[in-house]
């Protein structure tokens, strides 16, 4: 699912509420409501991967040390293999011993994404996952996310560029001022949305 909308529409806030990083003013968000085991905080956390604006990485540690740290916090058994495979997947194997502080913005974004999926979550929340990536990296990450989606990982993404997220999504939701204005299935996305952006639909939520 892709969340789109103008600045201040509430996209990131919605993602933070789903991730239980922010308490909603009213109502509540429950992850996996049909699974009683998920009421336990630790179980829900294992099923959730989050990539927000902050990378959650430590600049004073190397790429590998950061992944090892988060892997140990998730008590991952086959950590070595996951790190090796993941670094190869995001093309960072050559910099595994470099401190994060020396990485470019795009490299950090890819590493942050790898950190978010290292424990193989069932629900992946991504806030501008392509931010700072060059075209080649966007293609690489798109392909990786498509593979994750094919492995029954649910993706909820925010992006300012619909063309980057739409190929990965079965549903596109337009938000404005905290309200859901419009929602389209993958085969219902109107051509105007591609050509004119979401502008023509805005303002409806206020009436």
């Amino acid at each position, binding site marked *: 699912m892709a969340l789109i909308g103008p600045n201040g529409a509430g996209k990131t806030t919605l993602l933070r509420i789903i991730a239980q*990083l922010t308490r909603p003013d009213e109502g509540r968000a429950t992850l996996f409501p049909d699974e009683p085991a998920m009421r336990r*905080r630790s179980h829900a956390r294992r099923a959730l991967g989050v990539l927000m604006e*902050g990378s959650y990485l430590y600049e004073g*540690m190397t790429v590998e040390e950061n992944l090892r740290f*988060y892997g140990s916090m*998730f008590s991952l058994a086959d950590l070595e293999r996951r790190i090796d495979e993941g670094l190869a997947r995001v093309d960072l194997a050559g910099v595994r011993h470099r401190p994060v502080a020396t990485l470019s913005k795009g490299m950090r974004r890819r590493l942050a994404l790898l950190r978010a999926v290292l424990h193989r979550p069932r629900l992946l929340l991504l806030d501008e996952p392509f931010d700072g990536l060059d075209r080649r990296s966007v293609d690489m990450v798109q392909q990786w996310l498509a593979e994750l989606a094919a492995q029954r990982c649910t993706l909820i993404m925010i992006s300012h560029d619909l063309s980057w997220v739409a190929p990965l999504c079965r549903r596109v939701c337009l938000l404005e001022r905290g309200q859901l204005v419009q929602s389209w299935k993958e085969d219902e996305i109107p051509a105007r949305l591609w050509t004119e952006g979401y502008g023509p639909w805005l303002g409806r939520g206020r009436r």
Partner: protein
Amino acid sequence: MKSFVRASWAVAEKDLRIQFRLKSLLLSMVVFALLIQVLLHFSFQANPAALEQMAAGLLWLPVFLSTLLGIGRLMAIEEPEENWEGLWLTPADPGAVFMGKMLGSLALVALVESVSVPLFFILFNPPVPQSFPLLLVTLLLGTWGYVSLASFFSVMARMSRLGDLLLPILLFPVSIPLLLGVVRLTQMALFPTMPGQEGLWLAVLIAYDVLFTLLPVLTFEYLLEV
């Protein structure tokens, strides 16, 4: 319990790895403690008779102040990339995260003490301590309680608008029973003429340490949620 210990160790190891690599914070804390110790030496040089009354305070003051200087920076490594959120999103018990942060800080303060306490004996030349074991136990319990409290209040202060300015205002009043305990016990350990009651003050110190270790461990989840 096993996962609690594993997560605590991971956090403490991560903090120590970063601090030993950067070195700047550890060096600042050690140099600051040494400078205070030297300044105190010059201040009390004129009146050696006062040493017996003041010795315990002179031993602890550099430790307390250098902890105050460094603890905020130790907690601040979680801020540039919103790492508190990253820790909150792991399945680890938030209490284990606090315990890891506290143990990492404790190790650094212990290193500061390993330089500052011998310097106290060199500069002030007090008589040979009456009880080395009591002095060591007091150093351990006193440092544990103070660092635990300082770690908790430091995170609390950093979550507020006032930031580090709030830390001493929160920390000093609550640490008064601990300060009384460590000063009395240190006096008893250093000087044979000081009246006993070690058991009472050790019990106070242990109770204080247990309370201010359990309280942050149990409530850290709510603090991170703010």
